[in-house]
């Protein structure tokens, strides 16, 4: 947080991850799960929920311990905390549904190296009280889930002709196999980023900035 700047409201804190600093579309962080598991909307939501859980857990713990953790060992501490919550979510998913667990495969364990989570701990939770850290983490987690859902639903529609497992085009639909393979993840992510940036470039603020520039 920059000193002298006004303290953001809780709503701003929440919306930061959901929209302004969306992990997938704006920061383009945590792409390993974003590309690997988003072959269906359900998988995307499961991965989003798992990541959100880890974000919330680590944000709470890091924030509670923030005055207790010396700078020198903070990374080690954050990693231990994150790894703990990843292991917990790993057990929980396996206990709830083995089907989802197998669909997500090794990518649940790989949440531990999702740079977005360590980034949140370092940049936000370690400098804010628990409630604020949780609000921000929830926004980030939902924003990440939203990004994954955007990828997963497009890939499922083209790759399997269904959404959330419900067939959209009947039995004769021709699946676009490439959408289920890794290249499809890149194509869809690229298309979303294109759309997102094109849209952002057209918002009033951006148009005004462009105008000022052309006049100046």
């Amino acid at each position, binding site marked *: 947080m920059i000193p002298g700047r006004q303290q953001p409201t809780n709503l701003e804190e929440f919306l930061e991850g959901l929209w302004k600093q969306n992990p997938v579309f704006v920061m383009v962080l945590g792409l390993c799960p974003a590309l690997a598991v988003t072959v269906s909307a359900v998988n995307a939501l499961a991965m989003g929920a798992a990541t959100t859980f880890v974000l919330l857990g680590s944000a709470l*713990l890091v924030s509670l*311990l923030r005055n207790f953790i*010396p700078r020198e*060992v903070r990374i080690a501490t954050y990693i231990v905390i994150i790894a703990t919550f990843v292991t917990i979510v790993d057990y929980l998913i396996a206990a709830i*549904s*083995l089907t989802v667990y197998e669909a997500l495969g090794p990518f649940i364990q790989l949440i531990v190296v999702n740079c977005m989570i360590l980034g949140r701990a370092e940049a936000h939770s370690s400098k804010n009280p628990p409630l604020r850290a949780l609000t921000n983490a929830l926004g980030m987690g939902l924003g990440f889930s939203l990004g994954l859902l955007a990828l997963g639903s497009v890939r499922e529609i083209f790759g399997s002709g269904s959404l959330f497992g419900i067939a959209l085009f009947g039995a004769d639909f021709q699946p676009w*196999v490439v959408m289920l393979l890794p290249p499809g993840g890149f194509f869809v992510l690229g298309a979303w980023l294109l759309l997102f940036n094109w849209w952002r470039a057209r918002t009033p603020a951006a148009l005004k900035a462009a105008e000022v520039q052309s006049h100046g």
Partner: protein
Amino acid sequence: MTALTQPAPPPATSSLAMIRTLGVVATVCGVLLVLTYQNTLEAIEANKRIALQRAVFKVIPGAATMQAYYVSPTGVVEANGAPPPGGLKFFAARDAAGQLKAVAAEAGAMGYADMVRVLYAYDPDRQVINGFGVVAHRETPGIGDKIITDRGFLDNFRALDARLNDAGTALVNAIKGVKHGARQHAWEIDAISGATVTSRAVAKGINDSAGKLLPLLRPHIEKLKEAP
């Protein structure tokens, strides 16, 4: 709020503080982990058991119970813990009356993209492989994954010849995959047109597994039939 003010040059942290922090955090995390592990263990084990049972029952229709065993040159033991040296795992499935329906085992071979892992059922009375299911694969969707659904391909596993020679040491005829439409013998697997590589991987996996498992199993079949 103290965290918001410009941080003063940090005072030197004592070694004790660092060790204390790491120790406390590790302890807290350790407790959390152990608690979660203990509370979810039962549910996870149950899930795995149900998933395995469902897979075995799918390749052996009519089965009501199943039990995992290890078979090795020294005999058959129930599969708890580590397998004996040279031991192979298999599942014995029984119907509601306790009669041995068939045995099932896992097989695997390199397919187009990765290992294709399948489960097959073996009927010891008729000496045929009469059940087939896919455990895991990473074959191309729309081509290689037809081994799960293709009717013609699944028909291969109604009575696939897996007779042992008289000495009981090896299969009389090696199970092998042949080009689509070229199946002539009961020990051949008719490949899916366009998915030859995957089909052949299935054939090779079953041949390798059955070639090792069935000779080991042969002396114990009668005992398995008796045991409840």
